């Protein structure tokens, strides 16, 4: 019973990790940028939600009306710089590692290194929950899951059905050929990176809704989120949701049945196994990926 409850809650929490991972997975797969700074953007998103709700009294969910456009610009600008400076896949990992550290330290200088959590009067969602049968789900995780489904389905449809989506997939497959067919990868890349950063703003809001946040919180996300990205298959946005649910469930069940401290151990062991046997994602057989 408690295990089942934990599994279901974990699955919902996995939705939040899917939102965090979606943008990372897409920019890695499509633009060959491994953007560790994505975690910095999520962190800033969480703090902005906290600040806007606390100081200005805006409903926490509605803060994304402000944070999403802002983050879009930041993400697009970052991609512009990466493109202009010719930062390649591996260098992007290092450059964005530097940026992540800068963001985390700046956040710490601005908001202090202490935990910050929205008070109950500005964040009505924190204390609410929904009961379905014998199971109880906290509102923040339910909201996160709904956002996850909406974002992932929307991204998947855009990639499949729109011209820009097809152009991006063509670009990811073969840059030279795609460019020869007149695909303006610069602009598309900036739009994609912008949208990815915008999703980071949403992820930050979702995290702040149910959790206290400190400047070093990204360390807790990195492992979990990369697990989701790799298990889901790099660049495969649909796989991200599946992997998010899987990782969230696994982690919650391990926490409930053994010990919360063991859950990272199980999780990272799972990533290592996945890297060794399914390096191209759960949905892609190793043989196909290798070609």
């Amino acid at each position, binding site marked *: 019973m408690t295990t089942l409850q934990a599994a279901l809650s974990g699955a919902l929490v996995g939705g939040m990790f899917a939102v965090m991972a979606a943008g990372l997975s897409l920019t890695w797969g499509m633009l060959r940028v491994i953007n560790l700074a994505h975690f910095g953007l999520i962190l800033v998103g969480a703090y902005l939600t906290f600040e806007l709700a606390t100081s200005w009294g805006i409903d926490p969910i509605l803060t994304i009306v402000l944070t999403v456009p802002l983050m879009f610009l930041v993400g697009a600008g970052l991609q512009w710089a990466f493109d202009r400076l010719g930062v390649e896949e591996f260098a992007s990992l290092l450059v964005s590692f530097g940026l992540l550290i800068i963001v985390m330290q700046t956040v710490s200088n601005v908001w202090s290194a202490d935990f910050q959590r929205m008070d109950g009067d500005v964040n009505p969602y924190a204390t609410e929950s929904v009961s379905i049968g014998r199971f109880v789900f906290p509102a923040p995780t339910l909201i996160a899951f709904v956002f996850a489904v909406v974002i992932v389905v929307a991204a998947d449809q855009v990639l499949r059905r729109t011209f820009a989506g097809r152009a991006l997939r063509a670009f990811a497959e073969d840059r030279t050929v795609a460019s020869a067919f007149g695909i303006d990868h610069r602009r598309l890349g900036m739009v994609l990176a912008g949208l990815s950063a915008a999703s980071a703003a949403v992820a930050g809001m979702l995290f702040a809704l149910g959790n206290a946040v400190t400047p070093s919180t990204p360390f807790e996300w990195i492992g979990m989120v990369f697990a989701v990205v790799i298990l889901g298959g790099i660049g495969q946005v649909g796989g991200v949701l599946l992997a998010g649910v899987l990782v969230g469930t696994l982690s919650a069940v391990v926490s409930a049945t053994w010990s919360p401290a063991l859950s990272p151990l199980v999780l990272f062991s799972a990533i290592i196994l996945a890297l060794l046997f399914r390096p191209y994602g759960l949905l892609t057989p190793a043989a196909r990926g*290798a070609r």
Partner: protein
Amino acid sequence: MMARGLGGFVLAFAALAALAVWREDLGLPIFYLVLASTALFWIAQATSWNVLSGYSGYFSFGQGAFVGVGAYTTAVLGGRHGVDFYLTVPVAAVFSALLALLVGGLAFRLRSFRGEIFALLTLAVPFILAALARVNSEIDGGQGVVVPVAEYPEWLAQFQDFLYLLNLVVAVAAVAAAFAIQHTRFGWALASIRDAEDVAEGLGVATFRYKMLAIAVTGLIGGAAGSLFALQIGFVTVESVFGLTIPLFVIVMSVLGGRAHWLGPVLGAVVIVLIQDRLSASGFEGWNLIVLGAILAVLVVVAPDGLQARLWRRPWQAAVALVAVTGVLAIVDGWGGPLDWFVAGVLAAVAVVLWPGKAPAPAERRPAPSAAVPVPTDVDRGEAAESSGHSGPQLRPNSTIDGEVGEVLVECRDVTRYFGGVRALDGVSLQIRAGELVGLVGPNGSGKTTLVNLLSGALRPTSGSIAVAGRDIVGLAPHRIAHVGVSRTHQIPKPFESMTVRDNVAMAIMFGRSARPLAAAREEAQACLDVVHLRHLADAKPAEINLHERQLLEMARAIATKPKVLLLDEALAGLNPAEIDAAVAVVRRIHATGITIVIVEHLLRVVNQLATRVVVLNQGALLADGDPRTVMNDPDVIRAYLGRHAHARGT
């Protein structure tokens, strides 16, 4: 070189050790020694990281894991079981090395393992260890562990002197090890892995073994230094070792200093420690990590090769900047203390060294144009004429080795290879005899390159057997197959970009069937370069030579392994007619030295001229096999190449 270098390390150690032993007599404030201790700790860590990640290019975010294992070993053994500190240091180093071997054993097992995935994997390792330590109350249990203060000799004034000496021992040992590695075949192997790993493996470098050795050295040094770290901080917690601060520091230091040279991490560590110290002292503690992150982000874009290589180019300017800025600040004496002045001088020197300047143009390093064109000898002219197939006494194709065909060298039986559901090769049986020059042709996608990949061990057959010189090679690592006597070139040349043309060839000789020392290998490399007429470019870097020359370099490197059979995979692709004639002459010369050759080629003219026998593949199956004239007139072959109708019209 080696002996002198290691002698230098002994001298440096003695001089630096004297500072601690006679510190009070010298009137040196303890503060400087504490700072130097920190610098030494980071020199050891950055050097440890650099042996794997700098030399071989496999970036690791997991340095914290080695520090952590070292620190916890010393803390738990010393603090909870009363083991003597000195005994815990080697134990810590060994534990850490074992962990490193475990990580490497997992990560390096996959041949297609990409560097990015390795980096993410190492990112995960410290988190796993942190979780283990938190849960296990024998280790930590979430409480942290107190490290007992070790006893130190009475001829040292303070505990800090003792720490300094310990750090000095480990740091000097680490740097000396990095120096030794760089100047032996171990270092060359790692450099070749960094430049082009699969090529290195194919030339006979046991890449897996060298990567494992490198990660073990990284673990060994990281663990020993981590053990001292525990003593230094006195209280070990999960957060103090398993976070991302340690990897951040070592990466920034090595990237700043330069990763391809043993001195790089040393320079980087000294500069970073000085900056950090001055920032903290000036009340900018909150800016420490911001500055570090910015240095990393900017350096990777602006100067990814780091300080060391550039310092070699501007040593005097750097020295002048250092002395001038420090001197002026000292004379003016309007701000800060001696250390501030010195750090300002160091920063000025760093700026001068990193200042973007005109990189020496490739032309400057390339020999004069007149020398760049090989003067054809009479033999050459004869061969060139022969190869173009127009005139000359040796017009008859395949003249040299005809009739001298020897025993079976390569034996493929029923070789099949699937990619997913696609049959790239389907039941191919083939014999190649010593002395043959086999042309392997077929339409695109017919399985030619797959066959080459199977013969060289880059791929394994799904079923079937392949034997070379009587030895079954299925399942052998490519470097073992190279030692059996198979060598190949790549369609797109993949030279070792950091090495000169001569050293590219010398690599193949050093790691060939009979291992040779570097000096001898360099000498022998000249002969291989002569065969392909590249001697005049021996000192050029691969980036400075053209495609034709790069393809010739591929061949020179391939014959340097002294192969029994040489696989040329479209070695003439993208060349102009004159270059093709020259390359054809080279292939003949190689064949004339007694090397059996399999050449994959689309130009039938070339195949006709060169081959003693032609093998045609179509849709993964053997279509025809025989002497060139017969095969080329085979109706099936014409159909496969030109289509049904062409054949109908043709007959």
